[in-house]
């Protein structure tokens, strides 16, 4: 990964807190620590997977990357430019290069606009930055994009409600790739779809990535899907990254107790694997007052006194600088129970 290239996107210690106001004078009484100090680099053509349970801050992170939420602290650099400090006009121009696909295409497509005008809008907004300067040229381009994402030509004059969930997601993808962006943030793009449609959309996304050299930030809670599509996976818990690894290494050797539990909780579609489950106790704590020390310690079966006070930082483990984990005792835990952790590898 560190082959001397400049990263497409470079995130440094990104923080996003949402203030909570209360009391008679509506004073600032606290914060929701949605994203709390996350750093990573993304290179052209890569797919980064962001995984975690609801409330872990993965969607907030996705939006903060595109500056849809201004960050509370830290910086996001796109091709070396800090998008937080540049003028709004410049940011708008840069948005051409960074697009987003949302979970629910029905809510992200305007019901009163035809598919043709939905797809034409990006060309109108970024007028002068592309060669499609007439209605006719735009229509030819839009029909080409429709074909590219597997929609019929007559979709041009139809409205979003006339399409099924999978087709609507294709419209959402078409809109995102219309201006040939470099980066696409995909926020749970297949979670609302049925399995047979999910595989159609995943195949489409993989093909488009290959053909257009797209870079994806793929946010999902379904680990099997993330493992399938992502090159590198970030596991998040309460606004922080607890483990980073290349996807194969993540599944073969999960080092953080939370990742281990998450992988063991996935129901695998194979009844012969009546695997020994590692069921976590309790719920994800509130991000308003995250537990001190390691955020995971109240649910962690291996928690010790040090975990309650000392916040662990990401550090390389296993002699592999691409595999990082934020746990004080990762090695000890991993060596302690070889049966529990080698299990996902044994299934391959």
């Amino acid at each position, binding site marked *: 990964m560190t082959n001397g290239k400049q990263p497409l996107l470079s995130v440094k210690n990104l923080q996003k807190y949402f203030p909570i106001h209360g009391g008679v004078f509506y004073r600032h009484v606290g914060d929701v620590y949605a994203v709390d100090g996350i750093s990573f680099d993304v290179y052209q053509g890569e797919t980064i997977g962001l995984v975690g*349970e*609801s409330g872990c801050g993965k969607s907030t992170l996705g939006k903060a990357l595109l500056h849809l939420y201004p960050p509370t602290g830290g910086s996001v650099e796109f091709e070396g430019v800090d998008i937080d400090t540049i003028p709004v006009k410049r940011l708008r121009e840069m948005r051409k290069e960074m697009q987003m696909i949302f979970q629910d295409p029905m809510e992200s497509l305007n019901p009163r606009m035809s598919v043709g005008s939905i797809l034409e809008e990006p060309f109108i907004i970024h007028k002068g930055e592309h060669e499609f300067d007439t209605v006719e040229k735009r229509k030819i381009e839009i029909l080409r994009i429709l074909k590219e994402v597997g929609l019929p030509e007559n979709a041009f004059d139809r409205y979003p409600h006339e399409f*099924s*969930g*999978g*087709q609507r997601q294709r419209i959402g993808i078409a809109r995102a790739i219309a201006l040939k962006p470099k980066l696409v943030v995909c926020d749970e793009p297949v979670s609302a779809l*049925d*399995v*047979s*449609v*999910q*595989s*159609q959309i*995943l*195949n489409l996304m*993989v093909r488009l990535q290959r053909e257009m050299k797209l870079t994806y930030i793929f946010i999902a*809670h379904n*680990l*099997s*899907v993330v*493992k*399938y*599509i992502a*090159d590198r996976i970030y596991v998040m818990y309460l606004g922080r990254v607890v483990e980073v690894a290349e*996807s*194969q290494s993540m*599944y073969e050797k999960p080092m953080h107790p939370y990742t281990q*539990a*998450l*992988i*063991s*909780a*996935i*129901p*695998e*579609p*194979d*009844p*012969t*694997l009546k695997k020994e*489950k590692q*069921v*976590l*106790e309790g*719920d*994800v704590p509130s991000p308003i007052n995250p537990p001190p020390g390691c955020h995971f310690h109240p649910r962690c079966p291996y928690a010790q006194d040090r975990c309650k006070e000392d916040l662990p930082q990401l550090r390389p483990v296993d002699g592999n600088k691409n595999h990082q984990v934020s746990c004080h005792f990762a090695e000890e835990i991993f060596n302690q129970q070889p049966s529990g952790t080698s299990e*996902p590898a044994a*299934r*391959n």
Partner: protein
Amino acid sequence: MAILTVKNLVTTFQTDRGSARALDGVNFSLEKGQTLGLVGESGCGKSVTSLSIMRLLPKPSGDSPEGEVIYDDGTDRFDILKEPAENLLKIRGRKIAMIFQDPLTSLNPVYTVGYQLMETLQVHFPKMSSQAMFKRAVELLTDVGIPAPDQRIHEYPHQLSGGMRQRVMIAIALACEPDILIADEPTTALDVTIQAQILDLMRTLQKKNNMAILFITHDLGVVAEMCDDVCVMYAGKVAEHAPVEEIFNDPQHPYTQGLINSIPKLNTAQKSQLFEIKGMVPDLFSMPKGCRFQNRCPYVAEKCGQPPTPTQVRAGHEVSCIRHGEIDL
């Protein structure tokens, strides 16, 4: 012994566009103490099946399903579809209970958890004293693993997390120790670690109460983990019915096979071409004649225009494909 037998269940909805046959002859049976999974994609009729069994469909558009739903626990035997409405109140909750996908919309936001639990007890055991009911309610919350149940009982649904709400729903459903629990996507809205907790809890309670579960889900992973038998539904019909191992290891219907092959598994090669079932489920108003899967089936032949009849592959394994035996899946 089959505690619930569904025979040739047909449910039709009257709509502005004409009548839509949401269920077109569904057959299955649920054994005592066992778990039967109803699997399929959205719109295949899984939820309509459960609502038809409970006679909870909206009137008048979807009322009066045809066919038979026989409940038989050894002492009592009756056809739920023919029971008068007042008897249904004694069946629902007492003999057959139900839990839903989203516990926040199925719990009443203005009553405490305890009130809603005791309401069920009051309906079915009117002579029970309020102290006894309170005691029983705390006991139920303890059973479903809610910490500090004597405090939680006074809380409102919005004060609980998603997993806790689903536990409360299960406690309400189990209040009268029903013989059958219909679980309609009970873990779909939950995170994986919470899902694992709830599935664990359901298995424990099933063993304890010797209860039969009709488990409705679209997640084949959950099916593999929970079910003894599986019914794969497609467009209002049962495509295949088999023990869970046979569904996964020896699927006989092209749809079942497609469904299993299209999920990315943990050992699927990265960014490899995933299996696709082409096209989409046809509209209920324009179902093809004969096999309803024919427009998406890779093995379609001319005779698929005739309606398929269920064929027995071996004991307990039935498939509705007219080309069964001819095609090599």
